[in-house]
């Protein structure tokens, strides 16, 4: 069965998910993850016919396609209204790097 989160580690998963967890949270999260992964890994035992196709939920019949027509965009003022930081033109975000190399 695929390894429970030692590889990748809980730390790595948290990083990939961009979620900061402190030491205690990492430990607790790791334990819960382990528990749940053990539980869901029972699917390993599920006997499936060789040629079974996965089912992804959506109705499979019709192409959902729209014509290449222009719709009015949301006015800039409105769309930036919820922005945590903006200069009225752009969304503002902290710079990528903490230190100013490269």
């Amino acid at each position, binding site marked *: 069965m695929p390894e429970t989160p030692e590889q990748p580690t809980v730390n790595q998963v948290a990083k990939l998910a961009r979620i*900061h967890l402190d030491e205690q949270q990492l430990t607790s999260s790791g334990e819960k993850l382990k528990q749940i992964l053990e539980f869901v890994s029972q699917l390993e035992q599920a006997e499936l016919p060789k040629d079974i196709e996965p089912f992804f939920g959506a109705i499979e019949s019709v192409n*959902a396609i729209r014509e290449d027509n222009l719709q009015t965009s949301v006015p800039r003022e409105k769309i930036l209204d919820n922005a945590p930081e903006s200069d009225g033109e752009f969304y503002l975000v902290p710079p990528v790097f903490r230190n100013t190399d490269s």
Partner: protein
Amino acid sequence: MTLSALNADVIVDQLNAGEVTATDCVQHFLDRIQVHNAELNAFIRVSESALEQAEAIDQRRKAGESLGCLAGLPIAIKDGICVSGQPTTAGSKMLENFSPPYDATIVERLKSADAIIIGKTNMDEFAMGSSTENSFFGPTNNPWATNRVPGGSSGGSAACVAARLAPVAIGSDTGGSIRQPASFCGITGLKPSYGRVSRYGLIAFASSLDQIGPMTRTAKESALLMSVIAGFDPRDSTSSKEQVSDFLTSLETPLAGLRIGVCRDHLNEGLDVEVKTKINDAISVFKQLGANIEEIELPQTKSAIAAYYIIAPCEASSNLARYDGVRYTFRAQANDLEEMYRNTRGQGFGDEVKQRIMLGTYALSSGYYEAYYLKASKVRRMIKQDYDEAFKKVDLILGPTTPTPAFKLGQHTQDPLAMYLADIYTVSANLAGIPAISVPVEPSSTGLPIGLQLQGRAFEENTLLRAAHQFQNETLWHMASPSEPWRTQS
């Protein structure tokens, strides 16, 4: 009879007949909310403009204008559904101040029908949970016993309808989030077929499983709401073009000859004795109504929870990646971009949400797609095939909605797995995409509601509603309301 004791279809009739004004109607419910919401915490936010809207409806009615079929009816909407111009929070700190610049499709349709949105109801954060204890805005209490959970994630909507703070409400269901709270709160909750009701404007949890549905006292009110919200939406690629049946007119067709399947497995292990008894009693009622009861098997049910708890977190981990502090969410203090991401998501999300994102991220990560998501999706196909097979023999499948009545607040918060396992009867319908409804049966000896679930073929909501309606003609459990003041212990 006071207004809040009436069903929505009766209220609408009275409004149309001019026996009551929309203003008085809305005021009546606002007063009840004012008195009771503090204790229940069913609403995150009460609409500031509801009275104004009601007055406008009254004016238009006076002027002889033709109005929508729900004109003046107050309705509560789960706070995971976008209503423009006011906060839609999904029960999360992350979206505490998010004001959508648009209405969800179902909201547009309800507004076109001149319904009045009276408030946004509490929910488990991002719809992840079965108790509404995961809300940033605090838990909702079950009006039948306020030391118990109303269920989740649509707990606020369920409590609101049960406590008559609004005549009807809208919820959403991904693994049981309409039906389980309906069961715990003694009301009727319908999860439509996947694709039957537009998801445009529903804050996504698991895209291939989510559906919006009505939460009401009766099947008839459910049918009324469905006639407004159901139907194809070109803005949702997963929306079905399947013809919408007239849910209301078929309600009265007798059940004689209807074939109802019962899965013996579901009435054996782990099932609360009282639940088993009341479900069996209900089966007798259906027999009296002329239905034929047959035994069916759903062998893949045992894998359903595992499949669900892979698929849903995987999709959620991706759906929730957009909550990053950049464009419209809460943003945490940080020196640089990466720190901003990690702190925002660390602080903005609650524990359960973070847990499921971690699980989904892990299961989709390099090398694991086949073992988890793909495998679970194949099991999902098997579950669907189980239903296809069963529906060759029967028209409906009957069973309990939940293994037990409402549990106590705090009872399961330490053991997520136990909470997950209680979804055993509801997740399969989401996995297969079929419709399912929960209706109240006789409550437990301690007065806690118990729910019966009917599942039907895809796009045959009318059969479900018809069976539920006929059942509700014969029984009175759905009309019971918790007596006020609310009981605090049970």
